[in-house]
């Protein structure tokens, strides 16, 4: 019997990434297992966004390797919701249908809009929606890709509490479908609400990767402890 193909576990082995002579990620090894959401925590500039782009296949590492289970790292098996998702200049429905292949794309897109609570806006121009609504469109669009892993890059960074809650509810629903969630954030409250395990990134290095309870109760590094106390890491 053949083992089912899967992108998990996602294993990063000594991954480095430099752009324009600047080293953004350094010697980073991380193993992402199936299960509860993995939260990538760290201050701005820690390298969280680059890490997600590498895992999604939008960037290639300058050093080291990334293995996604028994398949290649690709945008076909994973999806990414950007911090500022680009809404195509078309309707909400067309935006969600864009990433879905096959002739039932619009029907599936409608069903997804229903699940993120935006059916009533399906025919509206996507770019006229509020930030929170656009983020939900982006979630539906990423969901429509049928990903095994859904990466989220600070999806609530500029949203108010109500919109944040709506996004987190949808993320929870997607996770409940068996999709692995990997989410970057610098919002500690959000990390506490969602995390199964936490990877703490600082200045391009992975300082710790532990179960969420361990991380919040007994961080191992002084930088993580300082970040948890709300100090401004530089």
């Amino acid at each position, binding site marked *: 019997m053949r083992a089912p193909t899967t992108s998990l576990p996602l294993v990063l082995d000594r991954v480095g990434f430099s752009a324009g002579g600047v080293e953004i990620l350094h010697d980073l090894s991380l193993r992402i297992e199936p299960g509860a959401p993995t939260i990538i925590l760290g201050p701005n500039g820690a390298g969280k966004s680059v890490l997600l782009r590498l895992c999604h296949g*939008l960037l290639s590492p300058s050093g080291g390797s990334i293995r996604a289970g028994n398949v290649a790292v690709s*945008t076909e098996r994973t*999806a990414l919701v*950007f911090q500022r*998702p680009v809404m*195509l200049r078309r309707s909400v429905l067309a935006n969600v249908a864009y*990433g879905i*292949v096959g002739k039932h794309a619009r029907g599936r897109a409608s069903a997804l809009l229903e699940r993120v609570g935006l059916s009533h806006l399906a025919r509206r121009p996507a770019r006229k929606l509020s930030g929170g609504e656009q983020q939900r469109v982006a979630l539906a669009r990423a969901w429509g890709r049928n990903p095994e892993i859904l990466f989220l890059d600070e999806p609530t960074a500029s949203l108010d509490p109500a919109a944040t809650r709506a996004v987190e509810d949808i993320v929870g629903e997607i996770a409940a479908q068996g999709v692995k969630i990997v989410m970057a954030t610098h919002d500690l409250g959000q990390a506490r609400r969602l995390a199964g395990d936490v990877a703490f990134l600082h200045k391009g290095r992975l300082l710790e990767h532990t179960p969420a309870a361990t991380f919040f109760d007994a961080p191992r590094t002084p930088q993580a402890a300082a970040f948890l106390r709300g100090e401004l890491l530089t």
Partner: protein
Amino acid sequence: MHDLSHAFSLALQLAASGDPGLWQIVGLSLQVTLSAVAISTLLGLPVGALLALGRFPGRNALIVIFNAAMGLPPVVVGLVVYLLLSRSGPLGEFGILFTPKAMVIAQSILVFPIVTALSRQVIEDLWAEYSEQLRSLGSNAAKSIGTLLWDGRFSLVTVVLAGFGRAAAEVGAIIIVGGNIDGFTRTMTTAIALETSKGDLALALGLGFVLLMIVVLVNGAAWIARRAGERLAGA
């Protein structure tokens, strides 16, 4: 001022008279101009998209050449096309000098660089915004180009209108390769040039007003289409 108001009333009389000669000139003008714009759009949009997305040696030089070619002098283009199409020229055997076809060729050479250079800029700007998102959504190069052309359609309409403006106002090239033959290759602009040289300034100006009205009508129709499209398709 008297001349201007006289010309304006003459233009209205001309437009209202239903003079078949006038309508024939208007029809030929539109036929030549719209054909040249259509050809330039069909060729210019894909070439513009390739220049915007492609990375190949000589790309920067091509961009500069197309940008510069937006300022091609019509008389020079007319002269070159004339030499190519004349009896002794390399394309003389087709015998299309002094026909509307020759005029369409000359105007296409003038409009094509405008559509190419401006659409390249529009598509490149849009690509900077879209590229990561489209790749993330599994879009390949062909689908991406289609997406950029569609999502850039309202800006690209303006690009095509710039090309239409150039062709509609142009006289230097078509008067050389068309010959301004009455009833065959006479257009609004060549007729205006002729009446001006004959000294019938009022008629020339009257024809000018008719031409302006047509240009305004075409642009107005494009504007209405754009607004309707925006409301329907959600841009």
